[in-house]
Protein backbone atom coordinates (compact mmCIF):
# COMPACT_ATOMS: atom_id res chain seq x y z
CA UNK A 1 0.00 0.00 0.00
CA UNK A 2 2.92 2.34 0.67
CA UNK A 3 4.10 2.10 -2.93
CA UNK A 4 1.14 4.11 -4.27
CA UNK A 5 1.32 7.83 -4.90
CA UNK A 6 -2.29 8.45 -3.93
CA UNK A 7 -4.43 6.53 -1.48
CA UNK A 8 -8.09 7.51 -1.31
CA UNK A 9 -9.83 6.31 1.84
CA UNK A 10 -13.62 6.19 1.83
CA UNK A 11 -16.40 4.28 3.59
CA UNK A 12 -19.88 4.74 4.99
CA UNK A 13 -20.12 7.41 7.68
CA UNK A 14 -19.09 6.12 11.10
CA UNK A 15 -16.98 3.16 10.01
CA UNK A 16 -13.67 4.77 10.97
CA UNK A 17 -12.30 5.86 7.61
CA UNK A 18 -10.47 8.82 9.16
CA UNK A 19 -8.67 6.57 11.61
CA UNK A 20 -7.57 4.25 8.82
CA UNK A 21 -6.36 7.22 6.76
CA UNK A 22 -4.48 8.52 9.81
CA UNK A 23 -2.99 5.11 10.57
CA UNK A 24 -1.79 4.80 7.00
CA UNK A 25 -0.28 8.30 7.02
CA UNK A 26 1.57 7.49 10.26
CA UNK A 27 2.80 4.21 8.83
CA UNK A 28 4.16 5.98 5.77
CA UNK A 29 5.86 8.58 7.92
CA UNK A 30 7.48 5.89 10.08
CA UNK A 31 8.83 4.32 6.92
CA UNK A 32 10.55 7.56 6.01
CA UNK A 33 8.14 8.64 3.30
CA UNK A 34 7.13 12.23 2.68
CA UNK A 35 3.40 12.13 3.35
CA UNK A 36 0.62 14.62 2.72
CA UNK A 37 -2.62 13.76 4.53
CA UNK A 38 -5.69 15.65 3.30
CA UNK A 39 -8.99 16.03 5.10
CA UNK A 40 -12.21 17.44 3.73
CA UNK A 41 -13.95 19.35 6.45
CA UNK A 42 -13.26 21.40 9.56
CA UNK A 43 -13.53 19.26 12.67
CA UNK A 44 -12.80 16.15 10.63
CA UNK A 45 -11.34 13.12 12.35
CA UNK A 46 -8.03 13.08 10.50
CA UNK A 47 -6.49 16.14 12.14
CA UNK A 48 -7.64 14.96 15.58
CA UNK A 49 -6.11 11.52 15.04
CA UNK A 50 -2.85 13.03 13.81
CA UNK A 51 -2.74 15.72 16.47
CA UNK A 52 -2.72 18.36 13.75
CA UNK A 53 -4.88 20.89 15.62
CA UNK A 54 -6.81 22.95 13.14
CA UNK A 55 -4.96 22.70 9.83
CA UNK A 56 -5.64 25.03 6.96
CA UNK A 57 -5.18 24.85 3.23
CA UNK A 58 -1.42 25.31 3.59
CA UNK A 59 0.09 21.89 4.52
CA UNK A 60 1.33 21.86 8.11
CA UNK A 61 4.12 19.55 9.23
CA UNK A 62 2.90 17.67 12.31
CA UNK A 63 5.88 15.29 12.56
CA UNK A 64 9.03 15.07 10.42
CA UNK A 65 7.89 14.22 6.90
CA UNK A 66 4.16 14.19 7.69
CA UNK A 67 2.10 17.17 6.53
CA UNK A 68 -1.62 17.69 7.04
CA UNK A 69 -3.87 20.02 5.08
CA UNK A 70 -7.57 20.72 4.95
CA UNK A 71 -9.28 21.07 1.61
CA UNK A 72 -10.81 24.52 1.44
CA UNK A 73 -12.56 24.77 -1.89
CA UNK A 74 -12.39 28.53 -2.22
CA UNK A 75 -8.63 28.45 -1.56
CA UNK A 76 -8.16 25.59 -4.01
CA UNK A 77 -10.06 27.60 -6.57
CA UNK A 78 -7.99 30.74 -5.98
CA UNK A 79 -4.80 28.74 -6.28
CA UNK A 80 -6.03 27.16 -9.47
CA UNK A 81 -7.04 30.49 -10.96
CA UNK A 82 -3.78 32.19 -10.07
CA UNK A 83 -1.81 29.31 -11.61
CA UNK A 84 -3.98 29.34 -14.71
CA UNK A 85 -4.25 33.04 -15.27
CA UNK A 86 -1.06 34.34 -13.69
CA UNK A 87 -3.03 37.38 -12.61
CA UNK A 88 -1.54 39.72 -10.06
CA UNK A 89 -3.67 40.92 -7.18
CA UNK A 90 -5.70 38.54 -5.09
CA UNK A 91 -8.54 41.03 -4.63
CA UNK A 92 -9.40 40.80 -8.27
CA UNK A 93 -9.07 37.04 -8.16
CA UNK A 94 -11.44 36.94 -5.21
CA UNK A 95 -14.23 38.33 -7.38
CA UNK A 96 -13.39 35.90 -10.16
CA UNK A 97 -13.30 33.01 -7.71
CA UNK A 98 -16.70 33.97 -6.31
CA UNK A 99 -18.18 34.11 -9.77
CA UNK A 100 -16.54 30.85 -10.68
CA UNK A 101 -17.77 29.20 -7.52
CA UNK A 102 -21.30 30.38 -8.22
CA UNK A 103 -21.16 28.98 -11.72
CA UNK A 104 -19.75 25.77 -10.35
CA UNK A 105 -22.79 25.32 -8.14
CA UNK A 106 -24.86 24.73 -11.22
CA UNK A 107 -22.31 22.41 -12.78
CA UNK A 108 -21.27 20.38 -9.76
CA UNK A 109 -18.56 18.36 -11.42
CA UNK A 110 -16.72 21.68 -11.59
CA UNK A 111 -16.82 21.98 -7.81
CA UNK A 112 -15.60 18.46 -7.33
CA UNK A 113 -12.85 18.80 -9.88
CA UNK A 114 -11.45 21.68 -7.84
CA UNK A 115 -11.05 19.33 -4.87
CA UNK A 116 -9.87 16.22 -6.66
CA UNK A 117 -7.82 18.38 -9.04
CA UNK A 118 -5.91 19.97 -6.16
CA UNK A 119 -5.15 16.54 -4.74
CA UNK A 120 -4.05 15.18 -8.09
CA UNK A 121 -1.91 18.24 -8.63
CA UNK A 122 -0.15 17.55 -5.31
CA UNK A 123 0.38 13.96 -6.49
CA UNK A 124 1.88 15.21 -9.72
CA UNK A 125 4.28 17.60 -8.00
CA UNK A 126 7.30 15.86 -6.57
CA UNK A 127 6.90 17.12 -3.01
CA UNK A 128 5.33 13.94 -1.64
CA UNK A 129 5.97 10.21 -1.84
CA UNK A 130 2.35 9.52 -0.96
CA UNK A 131 -0.81 11.58 -0.64
CA UNK A 132 -3.45 10.12 1.72
CA UNK A 133 -6.92 11.53 1.08
CA UNK A 134 -9.46 11.11 3.86
CA UNK A 135 -12.18 11.30 1.24
CA UNK A 136 -15.92 11.98 1.42
CA UNK A 137 -18.06 9.00 2.46
CA UNK A 138 -19.07 6.33 -0.05
CA UNK A 139 -22.40 8.09 -0.61
CA UNK A 140 -20.56 10.98 -2.28
CA UNK A 141 -17.32 9.42 -3.47
CA UNK A 142 -18.62 8.60 -6.93
CA UNK A 143 -19.08 12.25 -7.90
CA UNK A 144 -15.45 12.97 -6.90
CA UNK A 145 -13.93 9.98 -8.65
CA UNK A 146 -16.02 10.63 -11.72
CA UNK A 147 -15.42 14.38 -11.80
CA UNK A 148 -12.67 14.37 -14.46
CA UNK A 149 -14.80 12.17 -16.74
CA UNK A 150 -17.91 14.27 -16.09
CA UNK A 151 -16.01 17.41 -17.00
CA UNK A 152 -14.92 15.93 -20.31
CA UNK A 153 -18.56 15.20 -21.09
CA UNK A 154 -19.90 18.53 -19.85
CA UNK A 155 -17.32 20.95 -21.20
CA UNK A 156 -16.64 20.85 -24.88
CA UNK A 157 -13.95 23.54 -24.99
CA UNK A 158 -11.91 25.45 -22.44
CA UNK A 159 -8.75 24.78 -20.51
CA UNK A 160 -10.36 22.68 -17.82
CA UNK A 161 -11.26 20.03 -20.37
CA UNK A 162 -7.68 19.42 -21.42
CA UNK A 163 -6.67 19.06 -17.78
CA UNK A 164 -9.31 16.50 -17.01
CA UNK A 165 -7.50 13.94 -19.17
CA UNK A 166 -4.37 13.50 -17.05
CA UNK A 167 -6.51 13.61 -13.93
CA UNK A 168 -8.64 10.71 -15.10
CA UNK A 169 -5.48 8.86 -16.17
CA UNK A 170 -3.87 9.25 -12.73
CA UNK A 171 -6.99 8.07 -10.93
CA UNK A 172 -7.42 5.13 -13.27
CA UNK A 173 -3.83 3.90 -13.03
CA UNK A 174 -3.65 1.19 -10.32
CA UNK A 175 0.11 1.63 -10.07
CA UNK A 176 -0.42 5.21 -8.89
CA UNK A 177 -3.79 5.30 -7.16
CA UNK A 178 -5.40 2.98 -4.63
CA UNK A 179 -8.93 3.26 -3.31
CA UNK A 180 -9.44 1.86 0.18
CA UNK A 181 -12.98 1.16 1.33
CA UNK A 182 -13.33 0.91 5.09
CA UNK A 183 -16.31 -1.05 6.34
CA UNK A 184 -17.76 -2.65 9.46
CA UNK A 185 -19.09 -6.20 9.67
CA UNK A 186 -22.66 -4.92 9.92
CA UNK A 187 -25.60 -4.85 7.52
CA UNK A 188 -25.64 -1.29 6.17
CA UNK A 189 -21.89 -0.69 5.82
CA UNK A 190 -21.58 -4.07 4.09
CA UNK A 191 -24.30 -3.39 1.53
CA UNK A 192 -23.08 0.16 0.87
CA UNK A 193 -19.50 -1.06 0.39
CA UNK A 194 -20.66 -3.77 -2.00
CA UNK A 195 -22.60 -1.21 -4.03
CA UNK A 196 -19.50 0.98 -4.23
CA UNK A 197 -17.31 -1.93 -5.34
CA UNK A 198 -19.86 -2.77 -8.00
CA UNK A 199 -19.85 0.84 -9.23
CA UNK A 200 -16.05 1.06 -9.26
CA UNK A 201 -15.75 -2.22 -11.14
CA UNK A 202 -18.36 -1.16 -13.68
CA UNK A 203 -16.94 2.30 -14.37
CA UNK A 204 -13.26 1.53 -13.93
CA UNK A 205 -12.52 5.11 -12.81
CA UNK A 206 -10.08 3.66 -10.26
CA UNK A 207 -8.49 0.23 -9.95
CA UNK A 208 -9.89 -2.56 -7.77
CA UNK A 209 -10.48 -1.24 -4.24
CA UNK A 210 -8.93 -2.70 -1.12
CA UNK A 211 -11.54 -3.50 1.54
CA UNK A 212 -10.61 -3.05 5.20
CA UNK A 213 -13.07 -4.31 7.81
CA UNK A 214 -12.75 -2.30 11.00
CA UNK A 215 -13.65 -3.20 14.60
CA UNK A 216 -13.52 -6.92 14.07
CA UNK A 217 -13.73 -8.90 17.32
CA UNK A 218 -11.54 -11.94 17.89
CA UNK A 219 -13.37 -15.22 18.12
CA UNK A 220 -13.43 -16.99 21.46
CA UNK A 221 -12.12 -20.53 21.30
CA UNK A 222 -13.06 -21.49 24.87
CA UNK A 223 -16.57 -22.92 24.89
CA UNK A 224 -17.33 -22.80 28.63
CA UNK A 225 -19.26 -19.87 30.11
CA UNK A 226 -18.57 -18.91 33.71
CA UNK A 227 -21.30 -17.56 35.99
CA UNK A 228 -21.92 -13.87 36.61
CA UNK A 229 -20.73 -10.75 34.80
CA UNK A 230 -17.82 -12.43 33.01
CA UNK A 231 -20.29 -14.93 31.59
CA UNK A 232 -22.52 -12.10 30.41
CA UNK A 233 -19.54 -10.46 28.75
CA UNK A 234 -18.71 -13.70 26.95
CA UNK A 235 -22.29 -14.14 25.83
CA UNK A 236 -22.33 -10.65 24.34
CA UNK A 237 -18.91 -11.20 22.79
CA UNK A 238 -19.97 -14.48 21.19
CA UNK A 239 -23.22 -13.03 19.82
CA UNK A 240 -21.32 -10.09 18.38
CA UNK A 241 -18.71 -12.27 16.69
CA UNK A 242 -21.45 -14.49 15.29
CA UNK A 243 -23.21 -11.46 13.80
CA UNK A 244 -19.89 -10.16 12.46
CA UNK A 245 -19.05 -13.53 10.85
CA UNK A 246 -22.21 -13.31 8.85
CA UNK A 247 -21.26 -9.99 7.25
CA UNK A 248 -17.59 -10.91 6.85
CA UNK A 249 -18.76 -13.93 4.85
CA UNK A 250 -20.96 -11.68 2.72
CA UNK A 251 -18.04 -9.38 1.91
CA UNK A 252 -14.66 -10.99 2.64
CA UNK A 253 -12.27 -8.11 3.41
CA UNK A 254 -8.66 -7.85 2.26
CA UNK A 255 -7.59 -6.73 5.74
CA UNK A 256 -9.25 -6.72 9.14
CA UNK A 257 -8.54 -4.32 11.96
CA UNK A 258 -9.41 -5.26 15.53
CA UNK A 259 -11.94 -3.62 17.80
CA UNK A 260 -10.07 -1.09 19.94
CA UNK A 261 -11.09 -1.70 23.51
CA UNK A 262 -10.87 1.01 26.12
CA UNK A 263 -8.62 3.34 24.10
CA UNK A 264 -9.61 6.88 24.43
CA UNK A 265 -7.57 9.55 22.70
CA UNK A 266 -7.81 9.78 18.91
CA UNK A 267 -3.99 9.79 18.76
CA UNK A 268 -3.79 6.47 20.60
CA UNK A 269 -6.33 4.91 18.28
CA UNK A 270 -4.46 6.09 15.18
CA UNK A 271 -1.12 4.81 16.54
CA UNK A 272 -2.60 1.37 17.17
CA UNK A 273 -4.23 1.23 13.76
CA UNK A 274 -0.88 2.17 12.26
CA UNK A 275 0.80 -0.75 14.09
CA UNK A 276 -1.93 -3.09 12.92
CA UNK A 277 -1.58 -1.98 9.30
CA UNK A 278 2.17 -2.50 9.52
CA UNK A 279 1.69 -6.03 10.84
CA UNK A 280 -0.84 -6.76 8.11
CA UNK A 281 1.02 -5.43 5.10
Amino acid sequence: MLDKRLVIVSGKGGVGKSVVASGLALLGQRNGLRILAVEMEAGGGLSAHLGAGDPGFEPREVRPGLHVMRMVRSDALLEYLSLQLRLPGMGRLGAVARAFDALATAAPAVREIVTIGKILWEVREDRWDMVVFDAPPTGQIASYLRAPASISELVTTGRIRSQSKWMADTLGNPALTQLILVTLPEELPTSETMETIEWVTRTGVVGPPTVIANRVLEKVSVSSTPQGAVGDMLTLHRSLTEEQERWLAELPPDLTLPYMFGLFTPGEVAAHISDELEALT
Partner: protein
Amino acid sequence: MTRTILVTGAGGVGKTTFSAGLAVQAAREGVRTLVVTVDPARRLASALGAHDLGDEPQPHDELEHLWAAMLDSQASWRAVAMRHADPEVATRLADNEFFRAASEHFPASQSYAAADQAATFVQARVWDLVIVDTPPSGGGIDFFTAPAQMADLVGGRLLRWITGGPLPGRRFFYDRAARPMLRIADTILGSDLLQRISEFLLDLRTTYDGVARRGREIETVLREAATLVVTTADPAPVGEAVRFYRQLPEVASTPAAVVFNRVLPTAWATVRPDPDLPVELGRIAEQWSAETVRQADAREEFSSRYGARVATVPWRAVPPTNLAGLAGLMDDAEGIPWGDLLP
Protein backbone atom coordinates in the same frame (compact mmCIF):
# COMPACT_ATOMS: atom_id res chain seq x y z
CA MET B 1 -51.17 20.25 17.52
CA THR B 2 -48.71 17.69 16.22
CA ARG B 3 -45.56 17.23 18.24
CA THR B 4 -42.36 16.71 16.25
CA ILE B 5 -39.15 15.02 17.40
CA LEU B 6 -36.06 15.33 15.25
CA VAL B 7 -33.51 12.61 15.92
CA THR B 8 -30.01 13.71 14.91
CA GLY B 9 -26.58 12.14 15.16
CA ALA B 10 -23.64 10.84 13.15
CA GLY B 11 -24.08 7.94 10.73
CA GLY B 12 -23.80 4.44 12.10
CA VAL B 13 -24.72 5.12 15.74
CA GLY B 14 -28.10 3.37 15.60
CA LYS B 15 -30.22 6.48 15.06
CA THR B 16 -32.76 4.72 12.87
CA THR B 17 -33.26 1.83 15.30
CA PHE B 18 -33.61 4.29 18.16
CA SER B 19 -36.17 6.37 16.24
CA ALA B 20 -38.16 3.22 15.53
CA GLY B 21 -38.00 2.23 19.22
CA LEU B 22 -39.17 5.68 20.26
CA ALA B 23 -42.12 5.41 17.88
CA VAL B 24 -43.08 1.93 19.09
CA GLN B 25 -42.99 3.12 22.69
CA ALA B 26 -45.15 6.17 21.93
CA ALA B 27 -47.68 4.08 19.98
CA ARG B 28 -47.86 1.60 22.86
CA GLU B 29 -48.88 4.51 25.05
CA GLY B 30 -51.71 5.33 22.69
CA VAL B 31 -50.08 8.27 20.92
CA ARG B 32 -50.85 8.33 17.19
CA THR B 33 -47.29 8.22 15.92
CA LEU B 34 -45.64 8.45 12.52
CA VAL B 35 -41.96 7.57 12.23
CA VAL B 36 -40.24 8.96 9.18
CA THR B 37 -36.97 7.30 8.36
CA VAL B 38 -34.34 7.44 5.67
CA ASP B 39 -32.97 4.29 4.14
CA PRO B 40 -33.49 1.81 7.00
CA ALA B 41 -31.81 -1.58 7.07
CA ARG B 42 -34.08 -4.13 5.43
CA ARG B 43 -34.62 -5.98 8.69
CA LEU B 44 -35.65 -2.83 10.51
CA ALA B 45 -38.06 -1.82 7.77
CA SER B 46 -39.84 -5.12 8.20
CA ALA B 47 -39.99 -4.55 11.98
CA LEU B 48 -41.92 -1.38 11.21
CA GLY B 49 -44.46 -3.57 9.48
CA ALA B 50 -43.65 -2.22 6.09
CA HIS B 51 -43.48 -4.72 3.29
CA ASP B 52 -42.37 -2.09 0.93
CA LEU B 53 -42.10 1.12 2.84
CA GLY B 54 -42.59 4.19 0.68
CA ASP B 55 -43.02 7.91 1.13
CA GLU B 56 -46.73 7.43 1.86
CA PRO B 57 -47.23 6.69 5.59
CA GLN B 58 -48.46 3.15 6.21
CA PRO B 59 -50.22 1.93 9.35
CA HIS B 60 -48.56 -0.97 11.12
CA ASP B 61 -50.23 -4.37 10.73
CA GLU B 62 -49.96 -5.33 14.38
CA LEU B 63 -49.44 -2.23 16.48
CA GLU B 64 -52.27 0.25 16.59
CA HIS B 65 -51.36 3.98 16.48
CA LEU B 66 -48.08 3.33 14.66
CA TRP B 67 -47.40 4.55 11.11
CA ALA B 68 -44.16 4.49 9.19
CA ALA B 69 -42.87 6.22 6.08
CA MET B 70 -39.55 6.04 4.35
CA LEU B 71 -38.21 9.15 2.70
CA ASP B 72 -37.10 8.63 -0.84
CA SER B 73 -33.41 9.33 -0.64
CA GLN B 74 -33.33 9.85 -4.39
CA ALA B 75 -36.01 12.51 -4.22
CA SER B 76 -34.58 15.97 -4.36
CA TRP B 77 -35.42 19.61 -4.41
CA ARG B 78 -35.82 19.14 -8.12
CA ALA B 79 -39.42 18.10 -7.55
CA VAL B 80 -39.88 21.12 -5.31
CA ALA B 81 -38.53 23.55 -7.85
CA MET B 82 -40.69 21.99 -10.55
CA ARG B 83 -43.72 22.46 -8.35
CA HIS B 84 -43.06 26.20 -8.24
CA ALA B 85 -42.21 26.71 -11.90
CA ASP B 86 -44.73 27.72 -14.55
CA PRO B 87 -45.39 25.03 -17.18
CA GLU B 88 -43.20 26.47 -19.92
CA VAL B 89 -40.21 26.92 -17.61
CA ALA B 90 -40.83 23.53 -16.02
CA THR B 91 -40.55 21.86 -19.41
CA ARG B 92 -37.30 23.66 -20.14
CA LEU B 93 -35.93 22.81 -16.69
CA ALA B 94 -36.86 19.15 -17.01
CA ASP B 95 -34.59 18.82 -20.04
CA ASN B 96 -31.77 20.86 -18.61
CA GLU B 97 -28.60 18.92 -17.92
CA PHE B 98 -27.51 21.33 -15.17
CA PHE B 99 -30.79 20.92 -13.41
CA ARG B 100 -30.26 17.20 -13.35
CA ALA B 101 -26.67 17.55 -12.22
CA ALA B 102 -27.40 20.23 -9.64
CA SER B 103 -30.33 18.36 -8.16
CA GLU B 104 -28.19 15.24 -7.79
CA HIS B 105 -25.23 17.01 -6.32
CA PHE B 106 -26.48 20.02 -4.41
CA PRO B 107 -25.15 19.03 -0.99
CA ALA B 108 -28.29 19.94 0.91
CA SER B 109 -30.54 18.34 -1.69
CA GLN B 110 -31.40 15.16 0.19
CA SER B 111 -31.77 17.05 3.45
CA TYR B 112 -34.06 19.56 1.82
CA ALA B 113 -36.28 16.90 0.31
CA ALA B 114 -36.43 15.10 3.67
CA ALA B 115 -37.25 18.28 5.58
CA ASP B 116 -39.93 19.18 3.05
CA GLN B 117 -41.60 15.78 3.28
CA ALA B 118 -41.37 15.71 7.08
CA ALA B 119 -42.91 19.17 7.30
CA THR B 120 -45.75 18.02 5.05
CA PHE B 121 -46.54 15.20 7.47
CA VAL B 122 -46.46 17.54 10.46
CA GLN B 123 -48.73 20.05 8.72
CA ALA B 124 -51.22 17.31 7.84
CA ARG B 125 -52.27 17.21 11.52
CA VAL B 126 -53.15 13.53 11.19
CA TRP B 127 -50.69 12.35 13.84
CA ASP B 128 -50.08 13.42 17.43
CA LEU B 129 -46.40 12.74 17.08
CA VAL B 130 -44.06 12.75 14.09
CA ILE B 131 -40.59 11.32 14.71
CA VAL B 132 -38.04 12.19 12.05
CA ASP B 133 -34.85 10.20 11.67
CA THR B 134 -32.72 12.87 9.98
CA PRO B 135 -30.41 11.93 7.10
CA PRO B 136 -26.76 11.89 8.10
CA SER B 137 -25.57 13.59 4.91
CA GLY B 138 -23.61 16.79 5.31
CA GLY B 139 -23.25 16.40 9.04
CA GLY B 140 -26.95 16.37 9.91
CA ILE B 141 -27.16 20.04 10.74
CA ASP B 142 -27.81 20.85 7.09
CA PHE B 143 -31.26 19.34 7.54
CA PHE B 144 -32.02 22.60 9.30
CA THR B 145 -30.20 24.98 7.00
CA ALA B 146 -31.26 23.30 3.76
CA PRO B 147 -34.41 25.41 3.20
CA ALA B 148 -32.40 28.64 3.34
CA GLN B 149 -29.63 27.20 1.19
CA MET B 150 -32.18 26.08 -1.33
CA ALA B 151 -33.76 29.52 -1.51
CA ASP B 152 -30.29 31.04 -1.87
CA LEU B 153 -29.42 28.75 -4.72
CA VAL B 154 -32.65 29.34 -6.58
CA GLY B 155 -32.70 33.03 -5.80
CA GLY B 156 -30.62 35.81 -7.13
CA ARG B 157 -27.47 35.25 -5.13
CA LEU B 158 -25.75 33.15 -7.73
CA LEU B 159 -26.64 35.49 -10.51
CA ARG B 160 -25.58 38.54 -8.56
CA TRP B 161 -22.21 36.93 -7.94
CA ILE B 162 -21.77 36.17 -11.57
CA THR B 163 -22.71 39.64 -12.72
CA GLY B 164 -21.35 41.53 -9.75
CA GLY B 165 -24.40 43.77 -9.86
CA PRO B 166 -28.15 43.82 -10.30
CA LEU B 167 -29.95 41.03 -12.07
CA PRO B 168 -29.37 41.12 -15.79
CA GLY B 169 -31.67 40.30 -18.63
CA ARG B 170 -31.25 37.22 -20.70
CA ARG B 171 -29.05 39.04 -23.20
CA PHE B 172 -26.43 39.92 -20.61
CA PHE B 173 -24.52 36.71 -20.98
CA TYR B 174 -24.04 37.11 -24.68
CA ASP B 175 -22.25 40.39 -24.07
CA ARG B 176 -19.24 38.79 -22.49
CA ALA B 177 -16.65 41.15 -23.91
CA ALA B 178 -17.73 43.84 -21.46
CA ARG B 179 -17.07 41.65 -18.44
CA PRO B 180 -13.47 40.60 -17.88
CA MET B 181 -14.58 38.28 -15.11
CA LEU B 182 -16.74 36.30 -17.46
CA ARG B 183 -13.98 36.29 -20.06
CA ILE B 184 -11.73 34.57 -17.53
CA ALA B 185 -14.34 31.99 -16.61
CA ASP B 186 -14.82 31.56 -20.33
CA THR B 187 -11.18 30.69 -20.90
CA ILE B 188 -11.31 27.98 -18.29
CA LEU B 189 -14.77 26.56 -18.71
CA GLY B 190 -15.48 27.30 -22.33
CA SER B 191 -18.09 29.76 -23.58
CA ASP B 192 -20.71 27.19 -24.39
CA LEU B 193 -20.90 25.96 -20.81
CA LEU B 194 -21.15 29.47 -19.38
CA GLN B 195 -24.03 30.35 -21.61
CA ARG B 196 -25.95 27.21 -20.83
CA ILE B 197 -25.47 27.66 -17.09
CA SER B 198 -26.65 31.24 -17.16
CA GLU B 199 -29.78 30.37 -19.09
CA PHE B 200 -30.50 27.66 -16.57
CA LEU B 201 -30.03 30.01 -13.63
CA LEU B 202 -32.41 32.55 -15.13
CA ASP B 203 -35.06 29.87 -15.48
CA LEU B 204 -34.49 28.56 -12.02
CA ARG B 205 -34.88 32.00 -10.57
CA THR B 206 -38.51 32.19 -11.61
CA THR B 207 -39.31 29.58 -8.96
CA TYR B 208 -37.77 31.66 -6.19
CA ASP B 209 -40.92 33.04 -4.54
CA GLY B 210 -42.54 29.65 -4.22
CA VAL B 211 -39.40 27.95 -2.98
CA ALA B 212 -38.66 30.69 -0.45
CA ARG B 213 -42.21 30.62 0.92
CA ARG B 214 -42.09 26.85 1.33
CA GLY B 215 -38.66 27.15 2.94
CA ARG B 216 -40.04 29.48 5.62
CA GLU B 217 -42.85 27.03 6.38
CA ILE B 218 -40.38 24.19 6.75
CA GLU B 219 -38.17 26.27 9.02
CA THR B 220 -41.13 27.03 11.27
CA VAL B 221 -41.91 23.34 11.64
CA LEU B 222 -38.27 22.54 12.41
CA ARG B 223 -37.95 25.34 14.96
CA GLU B 224 -40.94 24.11 16.94
CA ALA B 225 -39.64 20.56 17.08
CA ALA B 226 -38.01 18.80 20.01
CA THR B 227 -34.56 17.44 19.22
CA LEU B 228 -32.49 14.50 20.39
CA VAL B 229 -28.85 13.71 19.67
CA VAL B 230 -27.92 10.04 19.38
CA THR B 231 -24.32 8.87 19.70
CA THR B 232 -22.13 5.99 20.76
CA ALA B 233 -19.20 6.46 23.13
CA ASP B 234 -16.68 6.30 20.28
CA PRO B 235 -14.60 9.46 19.88
CA ALA B 236 -15.73 10.36 16.36
CA PRO B 237 -19.52 10.18 16.96
CA VAL B 238 -19.08 11.94 20.29
CA GLY B 239 -17.28 14.75 18.48
CA GLU B 240 -20.19 15.02 16.05
CA ALA B 241 -22.68 14.88 18.94
CA VAL B 242 -20.92 17.80 20.63
CA ARG B 243 -21.23 19.77 17.41
CA PHE B 244 -24.94 18.99 17.10
CA TYR B 245 -25.55 19.73 20.75
CA ARG B 246 -24.00 23.17 20.43
CA GLN B 247 -25.52 24.07 17.05
CA LEU B 248 -29.06 22.77 17.47
CA PRO B 249 -30.25 25.58 19.79
CA GLU B 250 -29.49 28.07 17.00
CA VAL B 251 -31.52 26.31 14.33
CA ALA B 252 -34.14 24.38 16.32
CA SER B 253 -34.14 23.79 20.08
CA THR B 254 -31.79 22.71 22.84
CA PRO B 255 -31.70 18.91 22.60
CA ALA B 256 -33.98 17.27 25.14
CA ALA B 257 -31.27 14.66 25.72
CA VAL B 258 -28.09 13.15 24.38
CA VAL B 259 -28.84 9.46 23.89
CA PHE B 260 -25.85 7.13 24.25
CA ASN B 261 -26.50 3.96 22.32
CA ARG B 262 -24.78 0.57 22.72
CA VAL B 263 -24.22 1.09 26.43
CA LEU B 264 -22.72 -1.78 28.46
CA PRO B 265 -24.00 -2.64 31.98
CA THR B 266 -22.32 -0.18 34.37
CA ALA B 267 -21.50 -3.00 36.80
CA TRP B 268 -19.01 -4.35 34.25
CA ALA B 269 -16.71 -1.42 34.99
CA THR B 270 -15.54 -3.02 38.24
CA VAL B 271 -15.44 -6.66 37.15
CA ARG B 272 -12.11 -8.27 38.00
CA PRO B 273 -11.93 -11.71 36.39
CA ASP B 274 -11.12 -14.69 38.56
CA PRO B 275 -7.38 -15.50 38.11
CA ASP B 276 -8.30 -19.18 37.66
CA LEU B 277 -10.19 -18.44 34.44
CA PRO B 278 -8.63 -19.48 31.14
CA VAL B 279 -6.27 -16.71 29.99
CA GLU B 280 -8.40 -16.00 26.92
CA LEU B 281 -11.55 -15.41 28.98
CA GLY B 282 -9.68 -13.24 31.45
CA ARG B 283 -8.41 -11.06 28.63
CA ILE B 284 -11.85 -10.70 27.08
CA ALA B 285 -13.36 -9.79 30.45
CA GLU B 286 -10.69 -7.14 30.97
CA GLN B 287 -11.37 -5.68 27.53
CA TRP B 288 -15.10 -5.34 28.12
CA SER B 289 -14.48 -3.90 31.55
CA ALA B 290 -12.14 -1.27 30.07
CA GLU B 291 -14.75 -0.53 27.41
CA THR B 292 -17.40 0.01 30.09
CA VAL B 293 -15.12 2.45 31.92
CA ARG B 294 -14.48 4.35 28.72
CA GLN B 295 -18.20 4.60 27.98
CA ALA B 296 -18.97 5.91 31.46
CA ASP B 297 -16.20 8.51 31.10
CA ALA B 298 -17.61 9.69 27.77
CA ARG B 299 -21.11 10.13 29.23
CA GLU B 300 -19.80 11.84 32.34
CA GLU B 301 -17.75 14.25 30.27
CA PHE B 302 -20.70 15.11 28.04
CA SER B 303 -23.04 15.86 30.92
CA SER B 304 -20.55 17.76 33.05
CA ARG B 305 -18.99 19.83 30.28
CA TYR B 306 -22.13 20.70 28.33
CA GLY B 307 -24.80 20.30 30.99
CA ALA B 308 -26.60 17.82 28.76
CA ARG B 309 -29.22 15.41 29.96
CA VAL B 310 -27.85 11.96 29.18
CA ALA B 311 -29.99 8.92 28.34
CA THR B 312 -28.72 5.41 27.71
CA VAL B 313 -29.83 2.57 25.45
CA PRO B 314 -28.29 -0.86 26.07
CA TRP B 315 -26.02 -2.66 23.63
CA ARG B 316 -27.72 -5.46 21.73
CA ALA B 317 -25.44 -7.84 19.87
CA VAL B 318 -28.00 -8.04 17.10
CA PRO B 319 -30.01 -4.85 16.52
CA PRO B 320 -33.71 -5.48 17.24
CA THR B 321 -35.68 -6.26 14.12
CA ASN B 322 -39.19 -6.82 15.42
CA LEU B 323 -41.74 -5.00 17.55
CA ALA B 324 -40.98 -6.99 20.68
CA GLY B 325 -37.26 -6.31 20.27
CA LEU B 326 -37.79 -2.57 19.79
CA ALA B 327 -40.18 -2.39 22.75
CA GLY B 328 -37.72 -4.34 24.90
CA LEU B 329 -34.91 -2.00 23.93
CA MET B 330 -36.94 1.01 25.09
CA ASP B 331 -37.94 -0.76 28.32
CA ASP B 332 -34.25 -1.20 29.11
CA ALA B 333 -33.35 2.38 28.12
CA GLU B 334 -32.74 4.86 30.93
CA GLY B 335 -33.12 8.59 31.24
CA ILE B 336 -35.21 9.26 28.13
CA PRO B 337 -37.17 12.46 28.88
CA TRP B 338 -40.57 11.13 27.86
CA GLY B 339 -42.31 14.05 29.54
CA ASP B 340 -40.55 16.50 27.19
CA LEU B 341 -41.07 14.34 24.14
CA LEU B 342 -44.62 13.01 24.14
CA PRO B 343 -47.53 15.32 23.39
